[in-house]
Structure formats: structure tokens, C-alpha cells
């Protein structure tokens, strides 16, 4: 008989699940490679379109490019993270384990956020280089905006990815369902970023958009944690 230790706590299980996802990604580098590749393509295409005669576009446009690149690459990463649960029906074994559904959700969320942050760092560097953006001047505030956008995106995206786990054409469906819902985050992120990239940064406006994103994230987190269990259980 195997000795049974007390079940790990909620966060220990969540971190274990996140660690599993990151370990798989470390072995394959599949999500990071594809997401980063897509993000680079998006930034490159926009740079050809908007950088004319060596003159960078205004901060509003650069902010939009940054967030579009993050959005497109994020959907790819989200879909693949949950594909790994479906392959080999690993999700069934995970759901049968005594791990609370909320801990599974938290674990998937943490892993998705970690992977997206990695891609965002690369995108931020690219935007700085291609558009001569003043990312470094307000790095802390920009990082906070990006992190809040990522948390909101991953929060709602993980729920939809779980719901579409066994759906056909789930990649198309994921984008179709997810994009309209994250529009408020996208707008707030782009506006806040534009405020910070401006040669005369508007910190009050940026703070407003940051607070707006905090509020949206809280709503998404509450709804996501509530919806994940019935969705993943098929009730």
C-alpha cells in the first residue's frame, strides 16, 4: 500500500499544475516559439505599413500594434495549453484526482500568464526597436498595464479554452468568442499604453485605465472561477 501524505494545499496543487505546463513547454518550446513568431510577424507587418521615411507612428498607433500582437499570439498559446490536456485524455485523469477544480483553473491560469509574459517581453523589445517607442521611460507602469491585460485575457481565455476542449474548430471558436469579451481590456490597455508612450506622458489618464483594468480583471476572475467548474465538468 502506498503511504498517503495529507493532500497538498490549494496553492501547492495549483503551482504543481502550472509547473507541469511550464515543464512541458520547456521541453517543447512550442507555445513560446509559435506565439513569438506570430507576434514578430505582426510587429514587422505594421512596421512596414506605419514607419514611413524612418518616422515612427504616433504613440496611439504603437500602443495598438503592441496590444494586437499580444492578443493574436495569446490566443495561439491559450489553445495549445489546453490541447495538451485533451491529448491522451489527460484532463480526465486530472479531473478524477482530488485536486479542486478551482486549483486546476488557478494552475492553468498561472502557466498561461507566465507564458504570455515571456512573449510580451519579446514584443515590447520589438516595439521599442521598430517604432522607437519610449518603453523604458515608464517601464514599471507599462509592465503593470501589460500584466493586468494578460491576467484578464488569460482568466477569461482559460474558461473558454476549457469549454471548447472537445469542440471541433475550437481555434476559430476561441478567437470568435474571446475577442469581443476582451475588447474592454484591449481598449483600456491600448489607451493606457498610449498615454505612457507619449513624449509628455499623461499619468492620470494611465492611472485611470490601470484602475479600469483592475476592475475588469476582478470581474473576470470571479466569473471565471465560478464558471470553470461546471464548464470543465460538463454539467
Amino acid at each position, binding site marked *: *500500500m*502506498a*503511504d*498517503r*501524505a*495529507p*493532500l*497538498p494545499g490549494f496553492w501547492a*496543487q495549483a503551482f*504543481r*499544475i502550472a509547473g*507541469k505546463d511550464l*515543464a*512541458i513547454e520547456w*521541453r*517543447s518550446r512550442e507555445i513560446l516559439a509559435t506565439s513569438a513568431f506570430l507576434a514578430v510577424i505582426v510587429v514587422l507587418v505594421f512596421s512596414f505599413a506605419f514607419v514611413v521615411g524612418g518616422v515612427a507612428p504616433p504613440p496611439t498607433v504603437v500602443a495598438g500594434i503592441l496590444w494586437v500582437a499580444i492578443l493574436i499570439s495569446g490566443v495561439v498559446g491559450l489553445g495549445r495549453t489546453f490541447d*495538451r490536456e485533451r*491529448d*491522451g*485524455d*489527460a484532463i*480526465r*485523469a*486530472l*479531473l*478524477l*484526482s*482530488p*485536486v479542486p477544480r478551482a486549483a486546476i483553473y488557478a494552475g492553468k491560469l498561472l502557466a498561461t500568464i507566465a507564458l504570455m509574459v515571456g512573449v510580451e517581453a519579446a514584443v515590447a523589445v520589438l516595439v521599442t526597436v521598430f517604432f522607437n517607442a519610449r518603453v523604458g521611460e515608464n517601464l514599471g507602469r507599462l509592465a503593470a498595464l501589460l500584466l493586468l491585460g494578460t491576467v484578464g485575457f488569460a482568466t477569461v481565455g482559460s474558461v473558454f479554452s476549457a469549454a471548447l476542449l472537445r469542440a471541433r474548430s475550437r481555434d476559430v471558436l476561441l478567437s470568435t468568442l474571446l475577442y469581443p469579451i476582451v475588447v474592454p481590456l484591449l481598449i483600456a490597455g491600448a489607451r493606457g499604453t498610449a498615454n505612457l508612450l507619449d513624449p509628455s506622458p499623461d499619468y492620470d489618464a494611465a492611472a485611470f485605465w490601470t484602475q479600469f483594468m483592475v476592475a475588469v480583471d476582478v470581474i473576470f476572475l470571479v466569473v471565471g472561477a465560478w464558471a470553470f467548474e461546471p464548464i470543465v*465538468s*460538463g*454539467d
Partner: protein
Amino acid sequence: MTAPAIAPLQVANVGKVFGRHRALAGVSTSMNAGEITAILGPNGAGKSTLLAIVSTLQAPTSGAVRWGDVELRRGSPERAALGYVGHEPGLYLDLGALANLTLFAALYGVADGAARAAALLERVGLGGAPAHAPVRTFSRGMLQRLGLARALVHDPSILLFDEPSAALDPAGVTWLGTELQRERDKGRVVVLVTHDLEAAAVLAEHVVILRRGRVVRDERRPQPWGAATLRAAYEESCRG
């Protein structure tokens, strides 16, 4: 495991409705420890739905599943006593065999999970397999062996098998049958959902036949049934 390990699994008047489709209606049976229960029936009879309810993956629309005095539900801690083997291995295909087993050992709170995982790999005949190669590279038979090891990693009292021999070669089917008997002899509750009457005839003492979501036969014999007897019982139950 002590007393709970020998408690029978009681399915009490379980019903399940999906939208307007009734998958199960008033299903009652008991599954004893130290006995292999085969759940048989034609396609759409509700076998897998019943197993999903017993495994707590799905909630019944009516009725309950009890293990001893405890109702098995999604949130009940007793569900850690369940082990499940399906036709898919329930593994992360990009992780190695050892990593898969240690992950599930950790999620179940098994002390010294690495040692347990290594011992189980030996037991299912994968001790010589590359421990760190992604299990995606394993053959179907190897994956099913690893799937059984995953199901056993927390030493469950109740083992549920859903068409475990699908896509296995004859040697794999024989191996799996031996493993089921071994677990039965350890005093576990062993439940097998299968279309394979030949395998059920050799292994099961207790047969439950479902048809259109209802139990049409629930019978125990002191010894496994034998192929001819079980086939006759099955055809008689499913006729009409």
C-alpha cells in the same frame, strides 16, 4: 486502506438525463470488493455514463453512488480512493513516464512519489523504458500499461476500467486480464465496462447488463461465467 477498502460500491436508483435524452433510469446494483464486476450492453446502453457517474466525473440526475456510508460526489474526499483506466491513457504525452507518475502521485499526496512511480514502472513492465522520453513516443500497449500505473499510483480501493483493452494486441489483452485479476485478489472493487464478452466471461464474477439505460440483468456467480454462458445470457437480455 482498512475498513473502507472492503466496503461495496452501491449504485442506488441512479438516473441521468442529457437534455431530452434519458441515458440512465433507475439503475441500482452493488459492486463488491474482491470481485470483478463487468458492465455490459450494446452501444448507447449507458455503460460509460454509469462509469462516469461512479467515477464522480458526472453527477447523476437522480439517485446516488455510495461507498460504505459515504456518498461519492465530486467534492467528497473519498473520491481519492478511485482509480480509472480508460481507452485513452490519461497521461501528458509530452512528459516522460516517470514525470507523469510523479505528477499524479504528488496530486494525490502520495509520500515518496518518485519511489512509488519507479516501483510501478517496474510492475507494469516499463522499468526498461526510457524514463524521460515523451510518452508520445510509446506504443499503444506501453501507453496502456503506463495508464494502469497512473491509475494505481495512489493505491486506490476502487478500480474502474472503461474499455481498457480497446486497440490492444492479444498479448496486451492477456496482460491486462492478469492485472485485473491481480487487483481483484488484493481485495479491491474492480469494475470493467466492456464490449468484449470473451474477456468479461473469463474475468467477471458479477455481470450487470444494461439496455437502453436500464439494468436488464444483474447476476453473480461464484466463478467467472465462461464464454458460452455469458453470451447466451447477454443475447437473452438484449433481445427484443
